């Protein structure tokens, strides 16, 4: 007998074996699961497509009629023909810059401490759990916090209900998300990289700065960009700390004066403001503004992907 005998598997001859391994039952259950999974994907995509088509359809009067005018007009919740998003776009970009400058370095530094330095203590574990909980706190609560701290308490520095107070509120809002995603990116860096660096006599900081952070950079970037697009989409906390919903007069103020002194608005706040008005005109304005916010968020996410790929190639 040969080493492997067909009879061992229940067939008496080579022909029987062939028949058995070629005519087996189809994996019906597996096929069903595959189709169900595909269907859920289809539903998800369908909802997204429906949303975009619906927005495009409703926004058409604005997109077709006065798109350029719409882009360059300021906030005006009383007259749909005058309403635009220029101030809102500028506000959102200013807020985004403040979030990048404040929450990214702070959040990444916290993550480095938690992952690289404090990982042994029980306190650190407690803090880590609480950071996760903070990420789940509703944004309106951060709005109250911003109102209390950045508008009232630190009003002397922020200038009260300014874009600075708004930006700081959003920074605090996304800080836990930044800490969590950066922590995960740092944890994904293999221990062998750390050992390699320490093995040639690098201190902990040298190891972190030269190897751990660069290796984690793509992951950190992706996470922080997603946090940024969350900040770009928040309306509730901004309404509490002074986001303007009616008519925003910038007058003759310079850009710097507007930032430190004047009122501000942002895309989600403007959408909220337009959505409250009655009439088909404002419906179109609302839909058009929503589309622009959507594009803005897609651009931010696209930027995240592009940056990640760029960093990965440099390895």
């Amino acid at each position: 007998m040969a080493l492997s005998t067909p009879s061992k598997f229940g067939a008496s001859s080579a022909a029987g074996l062939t028949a058995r391994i070629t005519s087996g039952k189809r994996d019906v259950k597996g096929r069903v699961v595959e189709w169900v999974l595909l269907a859920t994907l289809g539903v998800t995509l369908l909802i997204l497509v429906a949303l975009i088509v619906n927005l495009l359809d409703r926004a058409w009067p604005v997109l077709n009629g006065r798109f350029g005018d719409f882009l360059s007009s300021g906030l005006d919740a009383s007259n749909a023909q005058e309403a635009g998003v220029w101030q809102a776009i500028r506000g959102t970009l200013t807020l985004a810059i403040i979030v990048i400058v404040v929450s990214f370095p702070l959040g990444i530094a916290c993550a480095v401490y938690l992952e690289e330095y404090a990982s042994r203590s029980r306190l650190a574990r407690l803090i880590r759990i609480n950071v996760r909980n903070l990420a789940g706190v509703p944004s309106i609560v951060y709005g109250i916090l911003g109102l209390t701290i950045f508008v009232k308490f630190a009003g002397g520095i922020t200038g009260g209900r300014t874009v600075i107070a708004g930006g700081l509120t959003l920074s605090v809002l996304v800080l836990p998300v930044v800490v969590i995603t950066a922590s995960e990116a740092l944890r994904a860096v293999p221990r062998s990289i750390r050992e390699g660096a320490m093995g040639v006599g690098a201190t902990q900081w040298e190891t972190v700065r030269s190897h751990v952070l660069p290796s984690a950079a793509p992951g950190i970037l992706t996470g922080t960009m997603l946090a940024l697009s969350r900040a770009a989409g928040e309306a509730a906390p901004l309404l509490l700390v002074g986001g303007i919903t009616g008519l925003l007069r910038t007058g003759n103020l310079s850009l710097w004066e507007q930032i430190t002194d004047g009122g501000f608005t942002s895309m989600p706040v403007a959408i909220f403001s337009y959505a409250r008005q009655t009439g088909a005109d404002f419906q179109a304005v609302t839909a058009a503004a929503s589309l622009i916010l959507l594009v803005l968020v897609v651009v931010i996410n696209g930027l995240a992907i592009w940056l990640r790929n760029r960093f990965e190639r440099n390895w």
Partner: protein
Amino acid sequence: MEENHEEVVTQQVASHDDVPVFRTKDLSVFYGDFRAVRDVNVYIKAREITAFIGPSGCGKSTVLRCFDRMNDLIPTARVEGTVEYHGVNLYDREVDAVEVRRRVGMVFQKPNPFPKSIYDNLAFGPRLNGIKKKADLDVIVESSLKRAALWDEVKDRLKASAMGLSGGQQQRLCIARCIAVEPDVILMDEPCSALDPIATARIEDLMQEIKRDFTIIIVTHNMQQAARVSDQTAFFTTEVNPESDRRTGVLVEFDKTQKMFSNPSDSRTEAYVTGRFG
């Protein structure tokens, strides 16, 4: 205090070549409550290759990682007994683990080049030591790669990513990276276990080359490798641990390699080297 130690160390290196580089006294290592290895007494002579052999879980890697305080990175690890490096106990309060690792380099089981260029892999250590000038770094990079027998293969692509090298080349790169900081000792933790026989042979040849300049300790699963490359061999095994049901590593025998493989004193060593267990 540290400076004092350093002076003492340098003097000893200069004057007593026969003084062991390392001497452990009743060394035990714990992970939490579990004693991974106990009562290890070995002495490592300068410019010799010492091999640690034994079955899995016998604590040979754990002991190796005490020699450059790499166990510090494992939060629960704890050491009892002493590890003397040129007479200084490495686990003294005043000893700076970073300074130890600049003198005691390590090559790991899985090649772990940094995800950077070949050049930057080599230059990282020297840069830490304050060498900034490109001309100086160029010299170090070239000489280290030559000593690690890798220069001819990579000299035209020093700026290419180290991740593009083969496994054997990556491991020689890691050895070169170690050599670049001119250590006193090189620890090798199963450096060939992820390599094919040809790459393994190259590493073994390389070890014979560099042992003129460095003291080498190698952990290996491969008994033939220990017999081929080492001057001294320590055989570890596991024994039932009265404190828990996990097995604790012990040092069975430590002697000249030739004796260990031809006429060992302990029957367990004989059983292992003849292939009857482990």
